[in-house]
């Protein structure tokens, strides 16, 4: 705490130093000294010594514990092992040096000299090691940390100013303030309070009228009635649901371009659950294990989006699992379990094996092929039929591919019989990693090798008769082969005679034995059975059910090549894309569930986080630090339901505290624990530990009711304080940790955008449904929570305003101030559009008196009456009037829309301009596909036609003059990564005067679309129309022609050119009137953006 009497200049210097140091978390000198221990000493102790010398050792050797400061200092049965400053006298060093004959550690082989040297250096420098309280404590000791203890039901403390406290919460707050000699702030005035309450509970402002009513209501119950009313509003779920979506790293797309079909059903479930005040313990249980709860309402299956809507890495599965572990551990428990992935958690009592016990849970779930319906389609019929067929077609293509490739791969394996036989022999005693190297080197398949091994070991008579000779040969050393061959051959007289016949002559080597086997087997590889049993046995060695080279279709994934993997992933992607199109095109909602795999397999520790380096097996169980004694293994499927029960158990000290703290944080702008997703040893300590406990206990007692919790917090005097400054208090507690006032807060992007829409009178109250595009113009006036969130490509608007980037769980949002925010407010079409709407609201436009209009605008935009000064400032602005706005863009002759070509009349018979502009495309709706326009869209470079000829896309050019035109351009259709499907697109150029001028088909190809000498009259149109031909998959195209015209009339004597690409633009902006500009400014004010 700075000295109050510090001089001004040193204070300034302090600020400067703070700013310069800001990027660094400079470590203090103490931690510098500890660094050597943490980085060089402890890892060696852990790796080489803990086995025998730690609290976790099966049997502690020599009474010596090296895993704590206490142990290291105390030493073992032979006394102290460390003499600080004196390496030579330290038993530890002597042991490491192998100096004495009877004391050599670690046993077997000394550590490298340079490692021992580090120990010497460390001891010479004083052997600094961290206090057990922070890091070295054993798991049991560290379990004593406050957050691992069950919250106690503390009695509210005694306070002096009894009149201030309205609730127990207040007594906890006030006691701390009084301790410091501080006083709380006076209550906020009623208009400030109602605005605060509205934003807190609904994310929206009250209207001026609502404020008036509340201000006038002096009855004692007025405030609690207000709170209750808002808690009952559906807007509450939209607000608090969004806050939970931050926790759940919610996204509508797995990654860029990979839209989830039904993510919105999870979002809507969250909103509904909160509106219904679903008890929080159930709320969590549903999100972890809705599918495992008996008799569960099927609607709750949507809750599983918590697990299924994360990132996914098709080729690195452990990352997918890590994402799930993290979102559960930090989101629900406030613990950084993910830190224990590569080594035991450095601070918290979370051993690596606990991470992998969670891994056992979350690696044994998958997305089922078919997702459960939440309700039946409203428009059962055409769409279901169309999309159903398309989806089935993709599945069939996938199945056909696998079947075909399996034959190829099995045939290929038949060319490697000899290699496999040898490889089985060579790999018999190898470790898993060595076997992997071997198969890589010899270009074999691991799974097929395993099948050979099993098959050769099969005790069935037929197998043994065929391979008995080989097995006997394989068992001898190469060097002894020649010597032992006669004996082996003689002992095999009962073997398959055809095999024996093959070995009439003595083979030169074991390799040759394998080669003769291979040749023999291939000779009898026939699709038809033999009547001769011996021949048939040979045939079955390649064609029988268990034959190593007859891999069944169900195991295709295990034998496929890299290329097959790419191709099958392509099929899956293609299926997912189609399913998402279906969902957005009216497909009935489904739950994005997960299910347990049929046979859950326990995971192994990945030593140092490396999946190729498996350690001990780790069955699914709960965290040991939150269990009494050793945690019991989970038994129900993957263990999700057991996990949920453990998380919401009243014995769990964290779950209630974590959520209570999150709720507190959103009400006050800062949590009681200011690291809301880290309640571990490195997290911040609670500012009011007893209050946190008190709230957690009450919360659980209340039946985990969030609404009761809000009520309890909001009815406190602490919450109702003014946010005004108090310089004295600020000096003592600059961060307002003691809550001597309410924190002023800036609206987050959801509240800001929603409030602008409320002011413009546009905001719709529709709940739920598929997302809309936030970037579309005209604006979709829905609440921001329903906007489309694409992981990896967050709309600039959201990113600039500190939105929760859904790459991973987000504990709290930042509040940054960057010019991109101002650019949005100043220049976006959204803001201009809303300013126009606000200025033209009936209440405003109806007033002819400018003064009254200003008053009206203030009441609508800022929810209060304007002051006389504000009125005069406003009128001055209005009276100054407007400079003329910018000239409208030259009217361009281009239009974009849907149309249909009619071959009987040879004309484009319909044309309907697109209504929506996304910033990149003109299209029919903010999100595609849309039930009327399909997925049709047009942009600067090209676009995509819809599903049928009626949904062809038309870029229409209307001639401004009479003349002769030529057209130049290239039509492209790409095979994207989803290769080989669809039939490309057809493009036509159609003149309103001459009919079709030319047409082209492209499919993964390009065509020059150049035409010359077309006579044209003023007002004629040229339509550049593209349809998807018979198959409407993969129809994206690029085509942006240029038109050149030699004008024939006097007004356009020179050549003129129009480029479809360069001319492309959105709706022509209209300059704002002075009133609209005034409305615009009011929406930009700090008053609009901040809540006191």
């Amino acid at each position, binding site marked *: 705490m700075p000295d109050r009497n510090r001089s001004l200049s040193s204070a*300034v210097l302090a600020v400067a130093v703070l700013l310069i140091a800001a990027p660094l978390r400079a470590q203090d000198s103490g931690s510098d000294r500890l660094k050597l221990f943490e980085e060089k000493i402890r890892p060696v102790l852990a790796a080489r010594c803990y086995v025998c010398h730690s609290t976790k050792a099966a049997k502690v050797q020599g009474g010596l514990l090296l895993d704590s400061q206490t142990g290291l200092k105390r030493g073992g049965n032979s006394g102290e092992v460390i003499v600080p400053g004196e390496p030579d006298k330290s038993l530890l060093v002597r042991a490491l040096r192998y100096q004495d004959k009877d004391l050599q550690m670690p046993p077997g082989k000394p550590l490298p000299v340079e490692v021992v040297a580090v120990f010497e250096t460390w001891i010479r420098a004083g052997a600094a090691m961290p206090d057990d309280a922070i890091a070295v404590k054993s798991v049991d000791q560290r379990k004593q940390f406050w957050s691992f203890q069950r919250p106690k039901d503390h009695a509210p403390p005694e306070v002096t100013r009894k009149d201030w406290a309205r609730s127990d919460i207040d007594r906890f707050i006030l006691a701390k303030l009084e301790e410091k000699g501080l006083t709380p702030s006076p209550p906020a005035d009623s208009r400030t309070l109602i605005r605060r309450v509205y934003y807190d509970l609904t994310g929206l402002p009250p209207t001026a009228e609502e404020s008036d009513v509340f201000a006038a209501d002096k009855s004692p119950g007025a405030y609690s009635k207000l709170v209750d009313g808002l808690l009952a509003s559906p807007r509450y779920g939209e607000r608090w649901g969004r806050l939970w979506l931050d926790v759940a790293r919610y996204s509508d797309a797995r990654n860029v371009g990979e839209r989830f079909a039904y993510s919105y059903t999870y979002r809507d479930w969250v909103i509904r659950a909160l509106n219904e005040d679903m008890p929080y313990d159930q709320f969590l249980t549903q999100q972890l294990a809705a599918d495992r709860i008996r008799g569960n309402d099927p609607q709750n299956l949507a809750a599983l989006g918590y697990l299924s809507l994360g990132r996914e890495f098709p080729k690195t599965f452990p990352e997918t699992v890590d994402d799930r572990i993290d979102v559960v551990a930090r989101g629900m428990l406030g613990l950084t379990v993910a830190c224990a992935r590569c080594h035991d958690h450095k*601070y918290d009592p979370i051993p690596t094996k606990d991470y992998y016990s969670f891994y056992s849970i979350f690696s044994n779930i998958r997305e089922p092929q078919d997702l459960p319906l939440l309700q039946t389609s409203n428009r059962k019929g055409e769409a279901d039929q169309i999309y159903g067929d398309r989806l089935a077609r993709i599945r069939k293509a996938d199945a056909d591919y696998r079947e075909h490739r399996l034959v190829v791969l099995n045939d290929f394996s038949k060319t490697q019989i000899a290699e496999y036989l040898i490889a089985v022999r060579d790999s018999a005693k190898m470790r898993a990693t060595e076997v992997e190297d071997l198969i*890589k080197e010899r270009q074999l398949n691991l799974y097929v090798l395993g099948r050979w091994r099993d098959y050769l070991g099969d005790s069935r008579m037929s197998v043994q008769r065929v391979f008995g000779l080989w097995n006997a040969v394989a068992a001898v050393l190469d060097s002894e082969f020649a010597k032992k061959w006669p004996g082996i051959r003689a002992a095999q007289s009962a073997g398959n005679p055809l095999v024996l016949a093959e070995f009439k002559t003595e083979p030169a080597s074991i390799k040759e034995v394998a080669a003769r086997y291979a040749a023999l087997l291939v000779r009898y590889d026939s699709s038809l059975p033999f009547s001769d049993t011996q021949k048939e046995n040979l045939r079955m060695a390649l064609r029988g059910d268990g034959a190593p080279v007859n891999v069944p279709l169900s195991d295709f994934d295990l034998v496929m090549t890299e290329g097959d993997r790419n191709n099958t992933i392509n099929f899956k992607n293609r299926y997912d894309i189609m399913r998402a199109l279906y969902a957005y095109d009216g497909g009935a909602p489904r739950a994005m569930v997960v299910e347990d795999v049929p046979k859950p397999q326990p995971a192994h520790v990945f030593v140092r986080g490396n999946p190729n380096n498996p350690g001990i097996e780790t069955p699914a169980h709960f965290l040991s630090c939150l269990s009494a004694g050793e945690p019991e293994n989970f038994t129900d499927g993957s263990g999700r339901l057991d996990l949920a029960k453990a998380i919401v158990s009243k014995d769990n000290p964290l779950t209630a505290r974590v959520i209570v703290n999150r709720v507190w944080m959103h009400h006050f702008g*800062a949590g009681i624990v200011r690291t809301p997703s880290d309640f571990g040893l490195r997290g911040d300590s609670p500012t009011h530990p007893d209050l946190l406990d008190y709230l957690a206990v009450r919360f659980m007692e209340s039946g985990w009711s969030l609404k009761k919790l809000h009520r309890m917090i909001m009815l406190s005097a602490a919450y109702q304080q003014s946010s005004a400054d108090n310089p004295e208090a600020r000096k003592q507690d600059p961060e307002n940790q003691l809550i001597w006032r309410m924190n002023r807060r800036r609206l987050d992007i959801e509240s800001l955008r929603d409030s602008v829409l409320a002011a413009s009178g546009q905001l719709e109250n529709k709940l739920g449904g598929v997302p809309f595009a936030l970037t579309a113009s005209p604006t979709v006036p829905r609440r921001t929570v329903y906007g489309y969130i694409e992981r*990896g490509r967050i709309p600039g608007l959201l990113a600039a305003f500190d939105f929760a980037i859904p790459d991973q769980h987000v504990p709290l949002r930042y509040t940054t101030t960057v010019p991109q925010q101002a650019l949005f407010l*100043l220049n976006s079409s959204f803001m201009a559009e809303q300013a126009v709407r606000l200025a033209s609201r009936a209440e405003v436009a109806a007033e002819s008196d400018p003064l009254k209009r200003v008053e009206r605008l203030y009441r609508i935009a800022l929810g209060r009456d304007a002051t006389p000064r504000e009125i005069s400032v406003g009128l001055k602005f209005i009276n100054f009037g407007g400079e003329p706005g*910018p000239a409208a863009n030259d009217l361009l002759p281009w239009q974009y829309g849907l149309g249909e070509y009619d071959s009987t009349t040879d004309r484009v018979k319909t044309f309907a301009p697109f209504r929506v502009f996304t910033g990149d495309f003109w299209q029919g709706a903010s999100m595609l596909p849309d039930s009327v326009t399909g997925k049709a869209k047009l942009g600067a470079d090209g676009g995509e036609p819809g599903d049928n000829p009626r949904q062809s896309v038309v870029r229409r050019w209307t001639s401004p003059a009479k003349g002769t035109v030529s057209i130049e351009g290239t039509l492209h259709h790409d095979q994207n990564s989803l290769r080989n499907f669809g039939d490309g697109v057809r493009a036509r150029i159609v003149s309103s005067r001459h009919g079709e001028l030319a047409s082209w088909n492209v499919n993964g190809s390009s065509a020059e679309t150049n035409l010359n000498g077309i006579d044209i009259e003023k007002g004629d149109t040229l339509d550049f129309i593209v349809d998807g031909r018979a198959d409407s998959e993969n129809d994206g195209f690029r085509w942006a022609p240029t038109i050149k015209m030699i004008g024939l009339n006097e007004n356009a004597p020179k050549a003129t050119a129009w480029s479809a690409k360069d001319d492309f633009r959105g709706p022509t*902006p209209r300059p704002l009137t002075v009133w609209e500009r005034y409305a615009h*400014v009011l929406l930009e004010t*700090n008053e609009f953006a901040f809540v006191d």
Partner: protein
Amino acid sequence: MKFQERLFTRRELLQRTGMGMGAVALAGLIGDTGLLRANTSGSSVNPLAPKAPPFPAGAKRVLHLFMNGGPSHVDTFDPKPSLTRFSGKAIPITLKTERRTGSAFGSPFAFKKYGQCGTEVSEIFSKVAEHADDLCVIRSMCSDIPNHEPSLMMMNCGETRQVRPSFGSWITYGLGSENQNLPGFIILCPDGLPTQGTQNWRSGFLPGSYQGTLIDTRQTKIEKLIENIKNSYSTKQAQRRDLDLLSELNRDYQAHRQEDALLEARIQSFELAFRMQMEADEAFDISKEPEHMHKMYGEGLQARQMMIARRLLERGVRFVQVWHGAGQPWDSHDDIKTNHGRLARECDQPIAALLQDLKQRGLFEETLVIWGGEFGRTPTVELPDVGANGGMSNGRDHNPYGFSMWVAGGGFKKGAVYGATDEFGFAAAENKVHVHDLHATLLHQLGFDHEKFTYRYAGRDFRLTDVAGRVVKDLLA
């Protein structure tokens, strides 16, 4: 409460000084000390305000030329005569690659010595090679995994799998930006996103304002380059009047809330935005470049990008990363000769011109110019595989075991070659430089100790170099 969270609320900074003075006055004082090169009051709340690094720095800004897809080192900056001799024969090295590879595959390109230093460079980079005396070529780079995605993450974020902030985000976090009217960390990439997309320049757990801003350099319209940069609804004069009104209303609101720096910061951000509208337009408009500049850079998208890059660096943008193109253009699994030939042809002259241009403007010495991909390619030929490549045997697979990069300017050695791969160019053999080491060294040149430049998140102090990396002093002049 975490330090970095405090960084953004100057209110708390002010309060920590224990002074009850207004935000504006104090901001003035800070400005006067010269320690904070702030343009106006309130900017200390601006996360991109320029900051001095904790140690003396050899470089002020970074230009990363990202040859995404993985350029083959044995065809560009690491000549391997043995490989040519052994061409078509097996070599005695087998390392795990993504796909199967076969025998040695000699480079189809000729190498020759350039400059005083005599560094050998492939003919396909003959123009860049004319700057050989200014390049520090590292021939012993190595990374961890032979796939694009993790290797891109390693090169850009210092970690192959988990979500971490990118190098550029770290730098803008640590140094802010010299130009408040442009984003501090800009990504140039024509025509779409590279593999891994925005993750390559994400801010991770750092605040979103440190995320890179992507500019699609195929776009020529400024409003496509920076969102909402153009006002289409008013004249500049009208907008100025609007802002004056806004400012007046905001001052009234602030009168009783003097202690709150966020309010002031928001007022200033509008002024900043107003100026940015003009400056950004100018910065990206290469039609302002004289004819001889266009000649020097040449034609095409790469020339356009490099010219924009120079204009941005010149204007004080802290970190510019230029990608060759969307996807992974340098990923020549087939037909190295045609594909690498074409790719180098596209960027050789523009890069050479950019180096020249930086020199003649006096920007070169304080700019770290980094050239390279996410890894190199195998010296052995890639064997065909169903659906994975074009079924041809004249390309190379991914190779993280050894590859080349070069760094120029920023206090790196000039005309130097550091490290070497084995005889065939498969793996780094002498003086290995892991990506972590490169990061540590680059950070060092920018004035940071890579072990102390940390950020507390989720219970841990994170750094760009994770738990590894060392400063390779031998790379430095």
